[in-house]
């Protein structure tokens, strides 16, 4: 007789709400009349995200494994789930923007219509919008929330695919420059599937090593390890490939600039922020809970990868002239700094990394949001030249972008500074002082390319004709404003959130 495990509905509610809303969204697509779909989807999406956040607040303080131990509901999980929901909210504000493009939102009217075809022209003329993006988006958010809470390798793998598959699709749905967008989807899918094969094989080897796939079980097997250590090492290495791919760590970073550039910008924002938060959540849980006992083995790996990552990100970023690509390299560099926090393997390191993720995630969405504003007739103008003299022509846009760049560069009184400081000091305390010195140098290098943009915006003559800043609707303003607010407030009064991260920094075993 099967005894069903107890299902902790309350603790599961944040995830379930999002996933169910996504499923309902699919039904809406099937049954609601076409004109009613968008409002229904918007209500559904925002309602689900807000309700999910509310439930996260309600269950805050939970500390248990639920539904037979597959999933952990604990401080880090909930903190990062909250972060993901906030990132998703801001991204959703960007996705619903309809005022920027003369033809509608940032997505192709029908992704199935061939670029440049008569069909596409007709769909555009009819002002069709692809409302299926919303259920896809929600399922991806749900996957991310599971990814940071998964407590065994199977759920981890499923969550990985769940967050990725919708993103592969969404990446290929840009309204403008569709060939680039489709190419981005193709590359992202191909390399993503390749990396998840490595991930899965690593999981198989870890299962072979431990005889179980729960994180706790693997940890136990490590403490009592016998002759099977080679399996553990190989398993960890291949697992890392999958996880490091998602955070775009060097040498698994190649996809990021291409995919970020090709995807519709709201999706790039969601990808750059959300996937990074989720993947780092998973990396943290895996390293702390499952293979913490083998830290002696994997720490050097992460140290070297972190060093490579922030140096390549910072140095190659210098040569970029496209802002989207530049932000991609910036995100690579940030992945390096975050990995440094992971290697700390301490409560401080955990809290610092989570705080960093929160600030980085929200300001990244804001920064990409600003990229959608500067446009020409044919879409966004993301080359650095298009932003010349913006400080004079559009002081607010320039100021907000400068603030984000300052935060990315880690200049004091911005949230980025606090995050970097916290991560660096935690890493230094764990004995990676030399790497912290390198990281400071790398962030100084990175500061050059951030500040170059500031210089271009403020000290260059605006180009007379060419790209213009389009006035967005309230929703983009919300997204950018949210990013600005977080960057400023957490830069000056980080205390409460730091305390929260500190309190939340214990994993349930």
């Amino acid at each position, binding site marked *: 007789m099967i005894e069903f495990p107890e299902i902790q509905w309350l603790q599961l509610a944040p995830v379930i709400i999002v996933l169910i809303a996504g499923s309902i969204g699919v039904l809406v697509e099937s049954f609601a009349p076409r004109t009613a779909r968008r409002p229904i989807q918007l209500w559904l999406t925002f309602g689900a995200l807000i309700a999910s956040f509310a439930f996260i607040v309600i269950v805050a303080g939970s500390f248990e494994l639920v539904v037979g131990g597959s999933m952990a509901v604990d401080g880090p999980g909930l903190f990062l789930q909250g972060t993901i929901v906030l990132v998703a909210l801001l991204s959703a504000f960007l996705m619903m923007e309809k005022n920027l493009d003369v033809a509608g939102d940032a997505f192709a009217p029908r992704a199935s219509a061939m670029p440049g075809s008569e069909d596409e022209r007709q769909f555009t003329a009819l002002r069709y919008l692809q409302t299926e993006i919303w259920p896809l988006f929600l399922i991806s958010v749900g996957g991310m929330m599971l990814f940071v809470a998964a407590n065994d390798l199977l759920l981890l793998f499923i969550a990985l695919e769940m967050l990725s598959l919708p993103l592969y699709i969404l990446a290929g749905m840009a309204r403008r420059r569709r060939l680039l967008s489709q190419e981005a989807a*193709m*590359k992202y899918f*191909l*390399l993503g599937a*390749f*990396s998840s094969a*490595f991930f899965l094989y690593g999981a198989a080897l870890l299962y072979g090593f431990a005889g179980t796939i729960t994180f706790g079980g693997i940890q136990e097997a490590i403490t009592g390890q016998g002759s099977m250590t080679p399996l553990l*090492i190989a398993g960890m*290495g291949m697992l*890392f*490939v999958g996880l*490091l*791919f998602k955070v775009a760590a*060097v*040498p*698994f970073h*190649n*996809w990021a600039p*291409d995919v970020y550039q090709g995807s519709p910008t709201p999706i790039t924002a969601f990808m750059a922020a959300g996937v990074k938060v989720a993947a780092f959540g998973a990396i943290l849980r895996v390293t702390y809970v499952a293979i913490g006992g083998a830290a002696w*083995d*994997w720490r*050097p*790996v992460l140290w*070297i*990868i972190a060093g490579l990552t922030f140096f390549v990100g910072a*140095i*190659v970023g210098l*040569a970029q002239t496209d802002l989207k690509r530049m932000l991609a390299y910036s995100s690579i560099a940030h992945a390096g700094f975050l990995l440094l926090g992971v290697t700390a393997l301490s*409560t*401080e390191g955990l*809290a*610092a990394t989570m705080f960093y993720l929160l600030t980085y995630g929200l300001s990244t969405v804001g920064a990409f949001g600003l990229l959608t504003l500067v446009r020409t007739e044919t879409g966004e103008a993301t080359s650095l030249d298009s932003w010349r003299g913006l400080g*004079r022509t559009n002081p607010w846009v320039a100021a907000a972008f400068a603030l984000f760049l300052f935060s990315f560069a880690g200049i*004091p*009184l911005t949230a980025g500074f*606090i995050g970097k*400081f*916290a991560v*660096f*000091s*935690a890493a*230094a*305390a764990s004995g990676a002082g030399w790497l*912290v*010195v390198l990281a*400071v*140098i790398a962030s*100084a290098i990175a*500061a050059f390319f951030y*500040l170059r943009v500031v*210089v271009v915006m*403020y*000290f*260059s*003559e605006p180009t007379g004709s060419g790209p213009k800043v389009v006035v967005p609707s309230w929703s983009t303003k919300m997204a950018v404003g949210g990013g600005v607010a977080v960057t400023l407030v957490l830069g000056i009064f*980080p*205390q409460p959130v*730091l*305390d929260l991260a*500190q309190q939340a920094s214990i994993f349930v075993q």
Partner: protein
Amino acid sequence: MISLASTILSTSDEEPAVEPITAVVSAAEAGGLFEWFWLLIAFPVFGMLVLLIGGRRTNAWGHLLGTAVVLVPFGIGVALLIDMMGRAEDQRSVVLHMWDWTIAGNFTADMALRLDPLSMVFVLLITGVGSLIHIYSIGYMSHDPDRRKFFGFLNLFIAAMLLLVLANNYLLLYVGWEGVGLASYLLVGFWQYKNSAAVAAKKAFVMNRVGDVGLSLGIMLMFVTFGSVAFEEVFAAAGEADGTVVTLIGLALLLAATGKSAQYPLQAWLLDAMEGPTPVSALIHAATMVTAGVYLIVRSNALFDLAPIALNVVLVVGVVTMVAGAVIGCANDDLKKSLAGSTMSQIGYMFTAAGLGPAGYVFAIFHLLMHGMFKADLFLSAGSVMHNMNDQLNMRRFGALRTVMIVTTGTFFAGFLGITGVPPFDSFFSKDDIIKSALSQNWLAGIATIFAAGLTAFYMTRQLSMTFFGKKRWTQDVKPKESPPVMTVPMIFLSAGALFGGLTMVYLFNLQEWLTPITGFTPGELPIPDWAVEVITIATLAIGVTLAWRQYATRDVPETPPVNVTPLTVAARKSLYADAINEGLFMRPGQHLTRFLVWFDNRGVDGIVRGTASGVSGLSNRLKLLQNGYARSYALTMVVGVLVIAAIFIVSRWV
């Protein structure tokens, strides 16, 4: 330089003749009037916010508000000074806690302000000179449509500078440090429509960033080593720390200081920064911001005392800049740029003094204070000239201005007396102290200071005579007249400072005694008698003045620079080839590194692979490799990554 450094090392080990006074670092809690010293910062911040947010609505009265919010802190500063003077020596340092800034679990940066005799001196300098320059700017900028914005930026600068000197830890200091940098860029680039101004702002921006990297590195190292960045805790813990680390911190701070104070090798931006409005040059690039580096070093004296190597580097940097700046000052025909060279040289004096360790910290600050007054005076006078000569700055087009600009001539002459060190004016005291101190510690540095004093006399006499004496060499269209009182009155005040500041500080106030609790003081022993030093110095001055006077006042000055000149003059005119050196030394290698890494990331992997595959093939094949963006290449990189990870595992476990 090695011989110089070793000389310094050998002398600094000698036993001091008199018992040294060590620095006191502990501070009392704020109380009474002292609880309110945060208002010093609050006023200019308020002014800035009103002016920048208010926009055009504040056009009518913005400049008045901007001036008032600096004048009031000056009043507060004077009141605080009187209060402080009434206190016992160990009660003069106060700390005001604002809020705790927890940055990582175990680390709390106490966001606190600190007022002690050292910062008191700076507060008065900043607000005092600042007020006068604000008043002067009312007249100087009266025709500019964006005058209120200018005042907003000036207020931002004053607030950031006050924060810099009032911070109680390096982190808050860093905030102020970035703030003055920001204000400086904004003000240098204020006339953005001038391309040269925009370029200059960019240059200042980039070179300052190099220095700022030093500061952030130093702060990070401090935190890693001492677990804190507060002055008192760092200084207390520095004694137990590893000497190498302290030396590294010292060098990092020095890098920051050279960037901000335009010392070699990061000096090049200062001359270009003269593109900014003249009040900016006077306030930021002469009196206050550029001296922040000196403040940083003197403030960190407890660290530098433990790092003799770093201190020696400070000395070397100081001596080099002191002489080089003076040479640039001698050759430049642009009045403001010549003054900028002089500023570099004078700050070089301060660095030299600071590099002497406890024997010189006090004199570095003393000279800094004097310099703040006479250099501001000189710049404002230069601005007055420029204002009336249709914004020309070429001294070869001046001459005989004493006939039409009597007040300006007087104030410039007062500045001249102040800077050259004619007894009994400002530099006579401060420079004399530095020369003596240098001679007592290191005869080479001492001789350099005397030589630089002679150069100072030469270039100042050159400026004075080319501008105000000799024959008229004006262009057709200028009709110079005296500036309005709103400009001349501040100049007169500053002249008074330039003339009598030294006397006051020595006989009435006794700055040396006032500062020693903070900086410590170790008197040195002179190798030759006191009077002999003074006689030699004054003789050198006299030679400098005479040479310049004969060259530029008694003979005709050609209107175009002579071509057949010595190589030294050519070098000096080109700012000692600073730009070329910078380009060769920093920019080129940086670009090459970047290009190489980009190339490596894109094509290097393929390139290596190809090499193993088919050996060395022709360049034509290589060109095909330049295309990438192929998913399969990316996948290959990932597999390489797998092997890299495996290699690290194997190496770290079994090797």
